[in-house]
């Protein structure tokens, strides 16, 4: 009863919350790396990233979280790829 829930399942529950909730986020990598949880990928905005990390801190409370989440650029490209 009082054994802690395995971290693997907690990560999956976090991934379910990411996908099922307001964020509808399925594109981030979330995995166990040693004793900590790595969250990696690209999101549309800084506010969105904050919401992802807030959810992570709630769902994965007590675990070390390593976040490498970048915000995707919205600028026009400065060059084209030529396909001869």
């Amino acid at each position, binding site marked *: 009863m009082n054994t802690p829930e395995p971290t693997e399942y907690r990560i999956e529950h976090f991934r379910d919350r990411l996908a099922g909730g307001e964020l*509808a986020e399925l*594109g981030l990598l979330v995995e166990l790396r040693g004793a900590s949880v790595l969250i990696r990928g690209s999101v549309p905005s800084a506010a969105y990233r904050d919401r992802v990390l807030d959810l992570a801190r709630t769902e994965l409370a007590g675990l070390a979280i390593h976040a490498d989440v970048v915000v*995707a*650029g919205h600028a*026009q*490209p400065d*060059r*084209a*790829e030529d*396909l001869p």
Partner: protein
Amino acid sequence: MIRVAAVGDIHLGEDSRGVLRPAFDTLGESADVLLLAGDLTRHGTVAEARVVAEEVEGLPVPVVAVLGNHDYHDDAQHAITEVLGDAGVEVLEGSSVVIPVQGTRLGIAGTKGFGGGFPGRSAGEFGEPVMKAFVRHSRDCAQGLERALRELADRECTTRIALTHFSPVPDTLAGEPLEIFPFLGSYLLAEAMDEAGADLAVHGHAHLGAEHGVTPGGVRVRNVAQPVIGKAFAIYHLHPSAQKPATATQPSPTGSERVRT
């Protein structure tokens, strides 16, 4: 030269209004067409589709789209297609469109596509009804794409692009966990492109993937998921007259039709 702008996985929510519009407004200078490779919305709601419509309505270039899995999430894919259509977006599903570009005919064939995996590691149409339905959906999408590409050959397009959401090849999934490849694409899409012929394949869906790939038959593949390209869109320059036949390894009647013009 044909200048193709493309982006997928913009995942616009109701709070995303205006995010891409400033970049899209510059398309008149840099591109002849804008392709949207699916996952245009976050939850697949009509309200989000309206945000997408506002981002692309009245742009100086034609806009052609396929939907992605997120655009199906609220079971509103038909309504979304309609909202985008009202904004002038050509939404393809097993269908094609021809766009005249500087005296040549650019054809775009599109389907959402689906998963199932890649040769040697792919799902088969076998067993439980839901498993058979899974594979059959992927097969239906690929067949729709092949039909649409052949249509474009019949309509004498000098350049043909295959637009999908799911990936036709594993190359552009590099960076994604290997274990989820079967959920990211299907070789059936590549086979359709190689059979019917295409000059370029554009897809999204794999946010952690890579931009460049090629089908077994030699069609160049680009993953334009916004997290991958890191820009509002990518631009590709195609050269209708100088192109080698996409079906060089296996000449087909439709492949030779391509070069008739």
